[in-house]
């Protein structure tokens, strides 16, 4: 069955069932069950905070509250990284199913992204509550910038889904991609402003290259959609501020391009790629 959008929309109940299935499977084998959806990003934050603030004595001097500053970037990146590494193997891991029932197989990578997004929402709710309690001094007092959050989430899902749709096909042909992806994702996180802010990147770029070149280098750095996403969540929730319009425009173009490109790649390989399973 062709994985067209019409077919996916007609089978949205299957997508919902797969998300619910994934979430149930994730808690079946553990004692704490769904508590892990909240606990996992918290523990990850504690590890990074402990190392950067506790051991190196950095972070908290510049970004306040640093644990939350870290948390939202880690949760956003975790959604992306976990979805990517799962998507690479999703068709291979369900090869018997893919080879025996005709259904729009694109729902498999999409369900990976969607269930990961539900975990992200659980983490985000912890972040939002903690941000309301632990409001930093820098907060403008304006709550309207929170309206940016749904749009940021939509862009995050679009970018992640686009990458995952494409990589789920490539993962069938090159199973080793999963091993490569682990390293690329690790480098990707450190290159993105997860542990630090974009202000530091701009400062360093201007310091090293001077006025016009430094600004251009910084603009190039912001082409990473996760630089805009991390900054957007921080500005909207932690500081009550708006993202500059040109960053919004850049993020919107990248989100649409990633999604359309990922979808087109899947369509191209759809119902052919299983020959490599």
């Amino acid at each position, binding site marked *: 069955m062709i994985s067209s959008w019409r077919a996916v929309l007609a089978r949205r109940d299957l997508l919902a069932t797969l998300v619910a299935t994934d979430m149930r499977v994730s808690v079946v084998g553990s004692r704490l069950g769904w508590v892990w959806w909240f606990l996992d990003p918290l523990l990850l934050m504690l590890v990074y905070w402990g190392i950067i603030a506790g051991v190196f004595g950095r972070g908290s001097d510049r970004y306040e509250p640093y644990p939350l500053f870290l948390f939202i970037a880690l949760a956003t990146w975790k959604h992306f990284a976990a979805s990517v590494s799962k998507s690479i193997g999703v068709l291979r891991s369900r090869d018997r*199913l893919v*080879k025996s029932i005709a259904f729009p197989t694109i729902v498999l990578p999409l369900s990976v992204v969607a269930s990961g997004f539900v975990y992200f929402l659980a983490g985000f709710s912890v972040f939002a509550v903690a941000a309301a309690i632990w409001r930093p001094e820098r907060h403008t007092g304006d709550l309207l910038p929170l309206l940016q959050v749904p749009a940021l989430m939509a862009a995050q899902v679009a970018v992640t889904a686009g990458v995952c749709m494409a990589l789920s096909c490539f993962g069938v042909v090159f199973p080793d991609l999963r091993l490569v992806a682990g390293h690329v994702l690790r480098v990707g996180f450190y290159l993105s402003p997860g542990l630090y802010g974009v202000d530091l990147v701009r400062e360093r770029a201007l310091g090293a290259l001077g006025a016009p070149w430094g600004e251009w280098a910084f603009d190039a750095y912001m082409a990473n959609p996760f630089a805009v996403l991390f900054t957007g969540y921080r500005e909207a929730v932690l500081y009550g501020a708006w993202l500059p319009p040109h960053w919004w425009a850049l993020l919107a173009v990248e989100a649409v391009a990633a999604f359309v490109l990922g979808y087109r790649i899947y369509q191209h390989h759809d119902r052919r790629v*299983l020959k*490599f399973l």
Partner: protein
Amino acid sequence: MTAASSSSSERGEAPIVVQLRGVGVWFQPQARGLGLLRRMASGRAPVRWALRDVDLTVREGESWGIVGHNGAGKSTLCLVLADILAPDEGTVDVRGKIAALVTLGAGFQPEFSARENILLYGAFLGIPAETMRARVDEILAFAELAEYADEPIRGFSSGMRARLGFAVATSLDPEILLLDEVLSVGDRQFRAKSRARLELMRARSRCVITVSHSVPFLRQVATHCLWLDKGTVRMAGPAAAVLDAYEATGGESAGV
């Protein structure tokens, strides 16, 4: 239905349900390590045609059998007919709701109960949840698993899983029925019951396509046969003639 029961005059008038024209599917032999690097460096990958120039026209009321040696392309043809695999060349036209009974129990989640797995399988097949919920008890009763309905299937024996797989896959009412090999699961009593259900499905379907190694079985159920040999059509037509020719070669591949 027997092979002799198809009348050629009727055949011309009955509407076409499945039509394949010049269908071809290639596979790439797996390469690893140095072989893969060499292939990447040259930019050329050898291909093996699993199907080539396959034409097939199935009309309403017909029951087709697909025979051939191991590796002749029968299962690949099944995947193409079931709209699971797209052909690399040629066209496939299937006019009607098709049910492919290829692998039983694919997609089952071991952590889920039998009841939940039935609903999950229904979702994969595109059956609305309400419709599937209404059928759950009947499916469980047929699989003789009503008393284990809410237990995770992780604890089920392979026979119990196969019965559940068969019961849920055959709970459909398809217009075109596609069977890969003779489905035989469970003990003698269950096998008799499953045969009766398949017969009922055959009778209700607009057409049936069965892939099998068993010539006696196909003589019983098929009106027409397609003999595949190394991915190409060796012979197609009334079942008796094709099966006689197939048996005359010992069912072996040409040139062997």
